[in-house]
């Protein structure tokens, strides 16, 4: 297993026709959904590779003697404005805007050069012709159109495109910057939680996102399990939040690792913009933006790990940053777990299901079988005990198609795409 192939981010575009993945090696692979066609009815909805390009390379900061990893931390698509597609991809330090365009025609019949590019001898030209466009094999090209660099001292953990389609924010451990998509040489710092004395540091920013329809609102989560909602109209520097979301800690569950497991690893607004969801180590919480005191829903992802926190601390699993996502209608949420398991929760029926993304359990067109983890006592058939879970097989990144029931699940270096069985 080459670590460079480990998928580090997964994201559908606005229409769901394109699915982008980034990996630790700095590459971006874009999949495109096949259109329906009568010839091949079964291949409707299959995603095939559309484009592959190297987004980021490893760099070395000579001033600080730091190696900058090329791992793609996040990809976010821009709304499509013309035939080309654009996305933002970021590593720890630099954000790049890539334009992905198709070329399926080429011009032939130039006067001054041959088809292979050699210049023609002008004295040999006896007549003029108009070049014509001839079809060619589809070529998908990716080119970096903007490079937004040198604005982050700490490691970038999030980028989020604003609903105004002109600006976007980028967040690192201590600061959040607001950029204009056209301007690369400067950005506005809108949140700065770096203390004057670093020894007083108590929390860091772990994720940030723009509101889906209010372009002045964004949220950011912290390592202390809190979320702050900020309004950019209030002040140029949004150090003072407009809303502060925190659930009081349950004192009975306090342990050495309480602080670690309360750190929020992902925050996502619902499509409606009314709710947001946060993921901490053991649970997913849905918050109503109008209520700051506690979440409206809490879903346990793998509560059976609570008694294993010490081992998970030793093997570093407790620092895994799981993401979460909404479905298109905000009626269901999904997040990953260990052993290549991922969990889905239906918010209306309160039912949940555990599924596995692995070659053995997923045959093409087969139906996924629900899995169950045995938490103690007698293990039933088909259940798996907590101690048999493979903690190296973790599903950190999942994505849900914006309109349909199609999901993309990244299991280490493999990407699984599942969809609802059609009637």
């Amino acid at each position: 297993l080459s670590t460079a192939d480990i998928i580090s981010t997964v994201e559908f575009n606005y229409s769901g026709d394109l699915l982008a993945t980034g990996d630790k090696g700095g590459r971006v692979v874009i999949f495109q959904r096949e259109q329906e066609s009568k010839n091949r009815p079964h291949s409707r909805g299959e995603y095939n590779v559309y484009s592959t390009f190297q987004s980021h390379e490893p760099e070395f900061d000579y001033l600080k003697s730091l190696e900058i990893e090329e791992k793609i931390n996040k990809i976010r698509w821009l709304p499509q404005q013309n035939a080309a597609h654009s996305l933002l991809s970021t590593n720890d330090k630099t954000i790049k805007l890539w334009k992905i365009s198709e070329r399926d025609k080429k011009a032939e019949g130039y006067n001054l050069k041959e088809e292979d590019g050699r210049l023609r001898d002008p004295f040999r030209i006896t007549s003029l012709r108009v070049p014509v466009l001839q079809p060619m094999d589809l070529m998908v090209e990716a080119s970096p159109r903007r490079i937004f660099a040198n604005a982050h001292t700490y490691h970038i953990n999030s980028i989020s495109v604003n609903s105004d389609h002109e600006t976007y924010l980028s967040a690192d451990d201590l600061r959040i910057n607001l950029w204009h998509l056209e301007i690369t040489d400067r950005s506005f710092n809108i949140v700065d939680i770096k203390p004057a004395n670093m020894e007083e540091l108590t929390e860091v920013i772990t994720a940030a996102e723009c509101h889906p329809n209010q372009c002045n609102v964004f949220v950011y989560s912290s390592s202390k399990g809190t979320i702050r909602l900020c309004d950019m109209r209030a002040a140029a520097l949004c150090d003072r939040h407009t809303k502060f979301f925190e659930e009081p800690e349950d004192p009975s569950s306090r342990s050495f690792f309480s602080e670690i497991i309360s750190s929020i690893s992902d925050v996502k607004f619902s499509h409606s913009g009314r709710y947001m969801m946060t993921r901490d180590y053991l649970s997913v919480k849905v918050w109503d933006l109008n209520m700051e005191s506690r979440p409206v829903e809490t879903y346990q992802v793998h509560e059976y790990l609570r008694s294993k926190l010490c081992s998970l601390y030793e093997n570093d699993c407790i620092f895994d940053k799981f993401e979460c996502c909404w479905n298109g209608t905000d009626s269901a949420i999904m997040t990953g777990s260990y052993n290549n398991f991922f969990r889905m929760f239906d918010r209306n029926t309160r039912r949940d299901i555990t599924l596995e993304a692995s070659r053995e359990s997923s045959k093409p067109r087969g139906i996924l079988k629900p899995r169950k983890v045995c938490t103690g006592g007698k293990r039933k058939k088909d259940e798996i005990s907590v101690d048999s879970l493979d903690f190296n097989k973790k599903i950190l990144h999942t994505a849900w198609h914006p309109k349909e029931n199609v999901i993309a699940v990244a299991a280490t270096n493999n990407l699984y795409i599942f969809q609802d069985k059609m009637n």
Partner: protein
Amino acid sequence: MEFKVEAHRIMSISLGKIYNSRVQRGGIKLHKNLLVSLVLRSARQVYLNDYYQSVCLNAQQHWGQHQEVMDSDQPKSTSEPAGYTTPAAPAETTVHEPGLPAENTPPELTIDVESFTESHATAPTVEEVAEADYTESKEDKGSGSDCRRQQSSEPKGDAAPASSPAAIPMTEHLVPAKQIGPKGEEEKPQHDEGGYGEADADRGGDGDMVTETQLDNQPAASCSRKRRSSEKTPQPVSPVKKTKRAPSSTRTGEEEMDTANVSNLITIFGSSFSGLLSTDGTQTEAGGRDSGAGQICCDQVLKNLNPWTTVIVAF
């Protein structure tokens, strides 16, 4: 007792993580190191409180015997235990709420680096400052003003039994070369380098000194740890460097971390820090650079640096 062993183990694991973070690709991850330092602080607190609890119990037993023998015109000694809150209370409260500043600060421990070499299992490895106070207040602490440099000289005979139970787990579960607890006033005069010294001086003034100052004015008392009022601040820890050993290149496992490697960790953190925190914070974000030049001067002031705050400050 199990708390203490577990806490000890977690502390050594945490320090191992901080150490390893230096060599990770991509630089030191601030978030992860912050979380590790929080765990380290919680574990240390539990460890100290557990240890303190067992020490108090032992000491009270000794007092019980002692009092029968001694004259009654030494009221001072009897008041000393009263200067501490009941042993059970701090252990309870701090186990459950490690984040709170502890008014009932337990005495600090000095962990002798030498004792962590594989061969040493004999001499008691922990000295109890508080025990020294409980027992004869005339105990010679050597160059008293710096209790960290105490050799593994004999603690009081009374104290020995109390310290040996703690010694045993500690030789097995190595805690790297750091002294748990104190920073104290004695560091202040030595803190002159760059902004770091300034930061430490600020720290020295804060905190709760109530219980410590109730003790006799032994030099040992001056080693008392002062807690900052901010509950989340990682506690400073001064490393103890008794011997300078050539760094050993092999590590057999997390639990058997070579203390020399950790001394180097502290050195490196120190050197990466020195000169960085000068004017504004932007210079501090270097993330663990080893600079040879800084290393030399840092060796001398290492005892004044705290690994965990240095982790944070190195950014």
